[in-house]
């Protein structure tokens, strides 16, 4: 045991926090037009003040317990474990109120918005899960809510659009570019510039200018805090051998990894969306196809051409259809701390049907990318593999039903 301890403690720089200016190694920072500077700076100061404030933490934790339903279970998926000859634990974020991990972040940010004195909330959304989670906390707090969503995503995630409307939010279609998550984020940032004084922008992933990547990571860190004690309680082991998560911008991965970031015994695995295949020209495998540059206010890895024009990504899953990745993740990947695998649309679909039939759990299409790579990560029969089951599949039923039909026609 003591031998192992020394090996974890050799790295002096913790991966858990960026530096003063928001850099994880060479990634992060704040590359924003001046019109946003005052807002981002005000947010940075308030965030620093509240994140360790016991009163804030108490309010945040009590909402997570009573409103969200935390802790979420850590569930040993026995039949899936048999198939992959290892021990697979599902961290059930799909059982949270609103059906995904996204609510952990919005509960925290709405409390911060209140401290900022902002009355108007905006958000971007891809799959609609973050939009629903934002609309939900706005209803809870009685704040006005506007959600930007790509026109393509409004089509493919219709149930979530209906939910946002019921919750009193206004969904605004983003019609530029590929009409998906990147474009919704652009529109939200423009709205924020136009309404800087009244509005707080609740970003839904570990992206954006400092302090967003750090703030979203901290507000999702509850996931790995629970994993650590739940695994110990059930197995006696203090740490998992693997933590696996899908990555769009990176919030569920950041949350599932956080407490293990500095513990080298834990292998951190990211699943990206390969779309129709990495080299198909229709992909969102950012870390493989991307290079260093700026997207949405931070230095990170993104898909771009030699002139720095951002390339439109593709994934069947709206939540992973994003050409960038969080700066923390860019740092984890380029330093080798995390390993990335890519799953295609088809592989993710197969994983959806497998988990549904084998475990009785219908996962979100985003989440299915993490399940789709389980055979490749090299886990042995004594290993404990924690998979971030980031969301449930209700919102994707249309996609799933259509896919079944297509399959039937082929056979």
């Amino acid at each position, binding site marked *: 045991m003591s031998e192992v301890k020394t090996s974890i403690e050799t790295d002096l720089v913790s991966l858990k926090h960026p530096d003063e200016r928001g850099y994880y190694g060479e990634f992060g920072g704040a590359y924003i037009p*001046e*019109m946003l500077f*005052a*807002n981002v700076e005000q947010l940075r100061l308030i965030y620093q003040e509240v994140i360790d404030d016991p009163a804030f933490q108490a309010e945040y934790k009590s909402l997570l317990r009573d409103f969200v339903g935390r802790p979420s279970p850590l569930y040993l998926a026995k039949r899936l474990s048999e198939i992959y000859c290892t021990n697979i634990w599902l961290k059930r974020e799909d059982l949270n109120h609103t059906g995904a991990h996204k609510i952990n972040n919005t509960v925290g940010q709405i409390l911060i918005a209140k401290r900022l004195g902002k009355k108007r909330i905006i958000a971007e959304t891809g799959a609609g899960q973050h939009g629903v989670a934002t609309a939900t906390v706005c209803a809870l707090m009685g704040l006005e809510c506007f959600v930007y969503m790509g026109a393509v995503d409004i089509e493919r995630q219709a149930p979530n659009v209906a939910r946002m409307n019921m919750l009193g939010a206004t969904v605004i279609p983003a019609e530029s*570019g590929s009409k998906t998550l990147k474009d919704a984020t652009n529109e939200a940032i*423009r709205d924020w510039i136009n309404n800087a004084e009244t509005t707080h922008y609740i970003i839904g992933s570990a992206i954006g200018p400092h302090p967003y990547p750090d703030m979203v990571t901290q507000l999702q860190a509850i996931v790995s805090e629970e994993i650590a004690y739940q695994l110990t309680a059930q197995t006696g082991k203090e740490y998992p051998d693997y933590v696996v998560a899908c990555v769009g911008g990176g919030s569920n991965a950041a949350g599932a990894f956080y407490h293990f970031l500095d513990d080298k015994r834990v292998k951190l695995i990211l699943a990206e969306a390969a779309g129709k295949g990495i080299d198909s020209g229709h992909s969102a495998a950012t870390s493989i196809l991307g290079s260093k540059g*700026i997207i949405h*206010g931070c230095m990170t890895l993104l898909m771009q051409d030699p002139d720095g024009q*951002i390339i439109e990504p593709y994934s069947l899953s709206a939540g992973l259809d994003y050409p960038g990745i969080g700066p923390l993740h860019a740092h984890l990947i380029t330093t080798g701390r995390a390993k990335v695998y890519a799953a295609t649309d088809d592989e993710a679909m197969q994983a959806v049907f497998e988990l549904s039939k084998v475990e009785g759990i219908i996962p979100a299409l985003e989440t299915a990318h993490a399940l789709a790579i389980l055979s490749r990560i090299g886990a042995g029969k004594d290993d404990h593999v924690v998979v971030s089951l980031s969301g449930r599949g209700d919102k994707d039923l249309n996609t799933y039903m259509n896919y079944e039909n297509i399959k039937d026609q082929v056979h």
Partner: protein
Amino acid sequence: MNKVRAKINEKQQRVLNVYFTAGHPTLDSIPSIAEGLQEAGADLIELGMPYSDPLADGLTIQKSSEVALKNGMNLKHLFDQVKQATASIEIPIILMGYYNQLIQFGMDRFLDMATTAGVSGLIIPDLPMFEYEAKFQKSFEDRNLGMSFLISPMTSDERILQAGRLSSGFLYMVSQSSITGKTQDISQEQHAYFDKVNNMGIESPRLIGFGIHNNETFETACKYSNGAIVGSSFIRALEKDASKAGIKTFVSSILNG
């Protein structure tokens, strides 16, 4: 002294800086629009480098950028066109673009090609001031390129002074906290903000931009600064008529009403 600052110092008042997007309305329209602007009486040209994700820009400039990129505009072609333009005009050309474009092209390579093409200044709204100061200020000075930083009504006094100190071209006073393309009148609050900045003892000349779209807003801006920047409304005019006569009519409508 860089050409941008020299031009503003020479004219002092009613400086008119006109923005358009490179590659819009057509791929090769930079030289003729630039000539048209000079002939019509503009003092500076701000040339937008079309970007896929222009965060600070409203619909008009977004659309013009999309058209320009579809037309095939890229930085190499842009520099070729600027070289042609600067061979026949004397008013300074300032490039406006997003930091990622410069990073991917390579900062030194970008600055070298810009200088060779006859570019006189740069505006990069998402380049942090500290990063410019630490990494690039000397390269700009060595090449005689004028840099302009933006301030908005929400910018703190400390940052206004810093932006003033680092702006070797002019200090860009964004009239209101917004993206480009708004066309509302200039309010009392904005007047107070302009007055405040003017009384801070900033050496750099100041131009007001965002929302300047007719003679009235131009005149108001000139009361509070050395001149103004007109963008979206010129792009809309170009979409209707990009001929030299059309440009003359537009510029005259701004200068004379």
